[in-house]
């Protein structure tokens, strides 16, 4: 069964460093998302991406964050200068459709980011 994959599973970085989290969405999906989940809190939307551009972003997704689809299979989230409060599980998701159809998003296993 097709699934979303994410690497690395765990990333430890020092405050102020840049990190890139990687995702391979399900191959025939066109819509891609990043969410995060701080320990013990809700899953929170960060950004959605379609047709090589950001289609929606939350207040969390400030100038320190960027997303990219560098090739036909990968989808990345970059945090330019990490802060302690960026420590969280980051989930990539993808969906086949949007705009009028039910938004069925399929999630990857997550990357646990620890900023020290």
């Amino acid at each position, binding site marked *: 069964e097709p699934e979303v994959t994410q690497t690395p599973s765990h990333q430890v970085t020092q405050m102020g460093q840049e990190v890139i989290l990687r995702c391979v969405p399900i191959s025939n999906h066109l819509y891609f998302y990043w969410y995060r989940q701080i320990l013990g809190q809700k899953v*929170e939307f960060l950004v959605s991406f379609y047709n090589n551009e950001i289609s*929606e972003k939350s207040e969390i997704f400030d100038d320190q964050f960027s997303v990219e689809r560098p090739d036909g299979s990968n989808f990345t989230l970059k945090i330019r200068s990490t802060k302690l409060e960026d420590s969280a599980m980051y989930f990539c998701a993808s969906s086949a459709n949007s705009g009028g159809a039910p938004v069925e*998003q399929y999630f990857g296993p997550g990357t646990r980011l620890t900023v020290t």
Partner: protein
Amino acid sequence: TQLLEQSPQFLSIQEGENLTVYCNSSSVFSSLQWYRQEPGEGPVLLVTVVTGGEVKKLKRLTFQFGDARKDSSLHITAAQPGDTGLYLCAGDRGGSEKLVFGKGTKLTVNP
């Protein structure tokens, strides 16, 4: 801000019992999804409900979407230890691609 409130937050029951967990909001959603999440893993989609009053069954799990599309429930019949996990509801408002998640119900089924 669209909030999805889930109750109860924690539920511990014995194998074989039935249970219902709830997902409520003051906002109308175009659809609601139920996910199950294991510790340290990503949410796994169980079902999507779209139409007000809709009922969907997945083996021993029954999902219902409220008539006004503001709430949903998940009923598990004859719970098994393998049902243990965090059950999340998530909704989309239509016209927006983001999912709004509840905080989840942590279910423990004791053998």
